[in-house]
């Protein structure tokens, strides 16, 4: 396992370099003049030219790339020009926990509900529960997140907050950056409830697609296992139906489900861009969107890099989980 992990870690820089390269090329080829954006609409041409010189936008593209890579290697993601030159690193440090919080909540909902639906569908295959859950799952994958978000707002907008992460009159202590944890640490129950209420709708909207995927995979995987000899043996030995399903079948059906959960987490980070926009959720999604609008090269590049990094790490973690769940992989034997 260690050798495998090391090999995976060795590829990581290569992946990140590729991402950074693509981001650089894309940003430099879209229309928009960053120097004009910095100098402002009313600035005379001379000021624009000065900014272009000072910021190095007039240098040959290869030199610009060299400077950019040099900075990246030092861990410097650059600065946000239009926001008093605030460090992109600081901005992302503020936003990333919010997005992770949203994605993790969505994943929790998706796995809990998805697993339940999937298991029930498999056990009562062909019955009305199966039909109902699979219809829900089909709807889940088909409905676009932003549209569902709007529907949720229409339906629950009168009882749940429709935008933001926390009511602006509350100030959460800044300890972890994760609002649920910070508000809990504050000891103020009303504030925690408020954070939870703000999280509910975005997390639900974001959860639908992975929920549907998890439900379908669970059902398929469970069906395969439920028919196997060891489950029948367990039942024959007098194990209760519930225990047979949960302890013997689900555990063995878990492998593909974990893979899917890992992959879905990446999708969630992407889906967060849409969800955050609909619910005005302060996180990486709204950050990327604003940065694109304002031609903030460094912010866009930094955000995409960090998200890619997170994605790769989560995939790695999934693979490790995989080997923990299935001893055969751990011991280098191919799964049957």
């Amino acid at each position, binding site marked *: 396992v260690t050798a495998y992990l090391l090999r995976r870690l060795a590829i990581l820089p290569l992946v990140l370099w590729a991402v950074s390269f693509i981001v650089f090329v894309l940003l430099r080829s879209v229309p928009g003049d960053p120097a004009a954006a910095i100098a402002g609409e009313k600035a005379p041409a001379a000021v624009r030219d000065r900014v272009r010189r000072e910021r190095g936008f007039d240098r040959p593209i290869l030199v610009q790339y060299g400077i950019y890579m040099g900075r990246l290697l030092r861990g410097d993601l650059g600065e946000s020009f239009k926001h008093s030159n605030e460090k992109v690193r600081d901005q992302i440090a503020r936003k990333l926990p919010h997005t992770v919080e949203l994605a993790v909540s969505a994943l929790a909902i998706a796995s809990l509900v998805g697993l339940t639906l999937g298991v029930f569908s498999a056990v009562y295959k062909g019955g009305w529960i199966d039909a109902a859950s699979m219809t829900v799952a089909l709807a889940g994958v088909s409905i676009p997140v932003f549209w569902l978000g709007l529907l949720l707002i229409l339906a629950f907008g009168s*009882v749940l907050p429709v935008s933001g992460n926390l009511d602006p009159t509350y100030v959460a202590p800044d300890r972890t950056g994760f609002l649920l944890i910070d508000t809990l640490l504050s000891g103020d129950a009303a504030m925690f409830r408020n954070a939870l209420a703000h999280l509910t709708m975005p997390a639900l909207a974001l959860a639908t697609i992975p929920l549907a995927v998890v439900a379908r995979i669970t059902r398929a995987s469970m069906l395969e296992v439920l028919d196997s000899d060891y489950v029948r043996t367990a039942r024959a030995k007098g194990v209760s139906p519930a225990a047979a399903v949960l302890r013997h079948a689900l555990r063995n059906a878990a492998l593909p489900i974990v893979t899917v959960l890992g992959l879905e987490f990446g999708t969630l980070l992407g889906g967060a861009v849409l969800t955050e926009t609909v619910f005005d959720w302060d996180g990486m999604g709204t950050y990327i969107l604003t940065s694109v609008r304002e031609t903030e090269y460094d912010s866009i590049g930094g955000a995409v890099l960090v998200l890619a990094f997170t994605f790769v790490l989560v995939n790695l973690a999934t693979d490790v989980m995989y080997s923990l769940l299935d001893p055969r992989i751990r011991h280098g034997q191919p799964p049957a």
Partner: protein
Amino acid sequence: MTRISRCVLLLALLGSCSDGAADPTALIWARSADSSTLDPAEIEWGEDAKVIQSVFDTLVTYRGDTVELAPKLAERWSFSPDGKTLTFELRKGVVFHDGTPFDSAAVVFTFERFLKPDHPDRPKNPCPYGSSFSDIEKVVADTPDRVVFTLKRPSVVMLYNFTLFAAHIVSPTAVRKYGSAFPSNPVGTGPYRLSRWDRDVRIVLDRNDAYWGPKPAIPRVIVIPVKSPQTAIEKLRKGEVQVVDHPTLADVKTLEEDPRTKVDTETSLTVSYLGFNLRRAPYNDPNFRRAVSLALDRRTLNELAYHGLAEPAANLVPPALWKDACPTPPYEYDLDKAREYLRKVPLESKEVELIHMTFSRPYVPEPLRVAEFVKDQLRKIGLDVKLTGYDKAAYDQKYKEPNHPMYLLGWIADIPDPDNFYYPLLHGDSKEDMNASFFDDPEFNDAVKRAQTEGDPGRRAGLLAKAYARYREVLPTIPLVHVRQVIGLSKRVEYNMHPIEVRFYAASWAK
């Protein structure tokens, strides 16, 4: 903990989700985006200016809800006979939020900081409004209570510029103390002080109890970004916020009908217009431009794209700033006459092109509708208009390219003077910038330039009228409408908009 009690706890937690706010005395003001900086010298947009207009003071301001100048941090001012020296007598006993005294040294520091390229405390980015102050030769602290500006040439509009963003007086001690962090730690003399800024989340302003002027009625204002106007209005109706300063024009009716909300509208110093590339056929033919102007029924445009909340424009300058000379009717709509003019144009084909933005601006909240309207109207005189829309980054470059066709644009003036429309939008000096028609007419240029220094109001009006006459004759651009600004309010709040400034300190709770 037993399983049941855990369930009960969870239910209790979720049960009262729509808990009210923690601080009911705070006014919550929703707007479209958070500030990007709170350093006056760095500010370019109205969105950023809103907050600093309550945290800092300027030397001069506008009286009440008019656009006439009134004293603020300066008690009096006077021009020398040659118009090249401007002296301000400063208010005594004013202190900054950090306790340091406001004096002439602070005024000198504020201006030199963005005027001198080698100033040790200059902001990193160039001051976006620096060019409005480029006529200043030097600033001198004469006595602690008197500051003298020497100008490169006499300027009639200069005094107005002292209301602009960059002219908000900053605490020199704070600028030196915070350095590059000053934009997040602004210290001024204004009616509110910044007590908290969580970027992209909220700005909390608390009343400055040591304020020299009338103290604000509301002790705390929390300014939050809510990007979508629909969401913001939903929050307004639920009582989560009390002010929404970016409703769309289509929302006005909803807000008026809801018993919990109301609307305030106010004139704005904006204009929308069609521009023409005067270096390219057929747009360079005056008869073509006349035909287009005659074919556009601005009253219908107002209903279609502005929900009736705009007024037809005869000039780029809104009528509030040049009432006496405003022609009636403000524009002519005559399709037959338009066709007649068009016949005189040697057209190679019936196809012409209009480029437009796809993003909303205050002067064109619904650019697609305006573009479609133009296409529709011009079809009536036999022209086939090809529409091409661009997003912000692309459009800012597109209309400055040398071979662009017709374009849709608009302007928000910074100061209430016709010069702030004529010079940046039409003067030959501005061809690299906002004068995207490349209009460069000696007669017009001369009249505008002379009006900038003409101290006699009568003679100045004559020069401006001359410039206008020349503009109408050549029609390098066609003014469309002046739209009103609107704000959505909770009935619990009293607030009257000002045509130019945003004044949180003017809000109060309804009796």
